[in-house]
């Protein structure tokens, strides 16, 4: 019997991650796959683009990690980096929560926008980060995405946006809802100008974000296993009074139902994007 077989067998009995088991692993040094339970050293996991070596589970990427993994030499010029949320409704606890998420994530808001080159193609890029208010869209997220689309029009660049969001941000009420229209209107201008918009839906992309800009790509891609949908699973279960299949609202489910162009594993994502950029750069060479 080979040594690796021994490990494989053991794993069979360790696939149910319990809260206790999670605590046993010192934070930061190692990570346990939430799907198969395989433990990976964090550094190795990061080197592997945060994909589980054993089962291919795609861990969430932070916005800075995503940017590093996509743009050439990690070089990225950020737009509107100092824009932060107000508390327009005086909503209970909102300011405190924003501050806490800033401290926790080191981000100012739930999206980073800017530009860089991908395979040599200058591109406007937006990346959402689910660590900040679950990636929810309030005024700042909406404004930054709309402005990024505006810059794409000004510069005649393509726009690639990675979404990861629970939807519109409740704490900014109807102003958050209106960001759906604002971002979609900005994309309408891109559309009218014949510019390319690629939406990459990552885990999770739901609610008002799924129902606005992230569904509006000329090409919509998604990462394997990503949760994508309009209504929450529990809400639907309560409405239809039946248990939903396990793969409901996954990227694969959406692909099957004709809602996505492709499901692209993270290791192939940069190359796929370069190929798409190349297709659309033909005949419109930038200097």
């Amino acid at each position, binding site marked *: 019997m080979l040594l690796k077989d021994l490990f494989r067998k053991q794993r069979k009995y360790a696939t149910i991650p319990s809260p206790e088991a999670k605590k046993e692993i010192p934070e930061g040094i190692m990570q346990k796959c939430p799907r198969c339970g395989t433990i990976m050293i964090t550094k190795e996991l990061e080197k592997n683009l945060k994909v589980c070596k054993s089962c291919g589970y795609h861990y969430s990427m932070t916005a800075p990690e995503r940017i590093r993994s996509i743009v050439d030499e990690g070089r990225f010029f950020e737009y509107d980096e100092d824009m932060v949320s107000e508390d327009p409704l005086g909503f209970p606890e909102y300011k405190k929560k924003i501050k806490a998420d800033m401290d926790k994530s080191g981000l100012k808001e739930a999206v980073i926008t800017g530009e860089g080159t991908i395979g040599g193609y200058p591109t406007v890029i937006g990346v959402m980060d689910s660590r900040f208010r679950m990636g929810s869209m*309030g005024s700042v997220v909406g404004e930054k995405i709309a402005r990024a689309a505006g810059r794409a029009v000004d510069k005649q660049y393509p726009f690639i946006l990675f979404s990861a969001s629970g939807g519109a941000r409740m704490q900014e009420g*109807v102003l958050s809802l209106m960001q759906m229209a604002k971002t979609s*209107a900005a994309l309408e201008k891109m559309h009218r100008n014949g510019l390319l918009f690629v939406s990459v839906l990552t885990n999770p992309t739901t609610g008002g974000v799924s129902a606005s800009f992230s569904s509006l790509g000329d090409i919509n891609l998604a990462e394997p296993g990503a949760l994508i949908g309009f209504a929450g699973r529990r809400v639907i279960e309560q409405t239809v009074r039946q248990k939903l299949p396990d793969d409901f609202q996954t990227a694969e489910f959406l692909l099957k*139902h004709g809602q996505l162009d492709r499901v692209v594993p993270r290791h192939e994502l940069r190359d796929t994007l370069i190929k798409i950029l190349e297709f659309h750069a033909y005949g419109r060479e930038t200097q």
Partner: protein
Amino acid sequence: MKNGYLPFEKPLAELRDKITELKKFTQEKSIDMSDEIATLEAKAARLEEEIYGNLTAWQKVQIARHASRPTTLHYIRTIFTDFMELHGDRLYGDDPAIVGGIAKLDGRPVTVIGHERGTDTKDKIARNFGLPHPEGYRKALRLMQQADKFGRPIICFIDTQGAHPGVEAEERGQSEAIARNLREMAGFKVPIICIVTGEGGSGGALAIGVGNRLLMLEHAYYSVISPEGAAAILWRDAGKAQEAAEALKITSADLKALGVVDQVIPEPKGGAHRDPMQQSAYIKEAILENLQPLLNMTPEELVEDRHRKFAEIGRYTTIVPT
């Protein structure tokens, strides 16, 4: 409560009953009690002022959801003439939760679209209580594209709890249907006026809500999430919907203050259901008033105007909270 009174209207309902009784009594017995009646009527007027002048957000939600509140088809039939309903999205089916077609507004052909909740139980069930599926939004889009082609103004009546949350809706692309409408509406070269007449339930409402002008009935509400939903998330207690309704700032006055709504359309005392014909008259007046300046704009100006409207909505700063 009887006569469609809501719980907070109880004192008024009782007083009105008393007045009716007294009037009947004086007629039957031919006793003159006009002084007493006048006093009570004055009191009722004061009470009315007190109750309807200080409605809380939650009370407004109750009015917006009132079982007898007029629905889109009432408004279409009373504000316009010659309504011809058009059906289907040409892709999957015809969603009765959204109605639409061509009608005349003071002789001018316009495209009218709206959520339709239904009136009696059977109708409500058939219309899924006004909760649209993707084919509903796609029908709306088709009719709007038709209006755009023929240069007809578009009038949308918003009144839904939200887009239907269901398996088939997800399978057929509820998100995509809503998203596409938002983008396409932004680009139409004809005037678009949207009116929130009852419930403005999140993305399912907004999907026919990207207009040059957004009008709202006095007691309608428009929110990113239902008060019950917000309460469940915030306090894990859907029963705290009253507090959530206040915190979310969902009334017509709130939305006017936030720069989202352009004009608040008054309602008859107690709400639209107390005088549906009067309500139609108020809405018609507001539509005509808002449409006129839009008719003078070029197609490009209309698109620009709509883009500017939504680009301006939102609050942000560069001052980091401490």
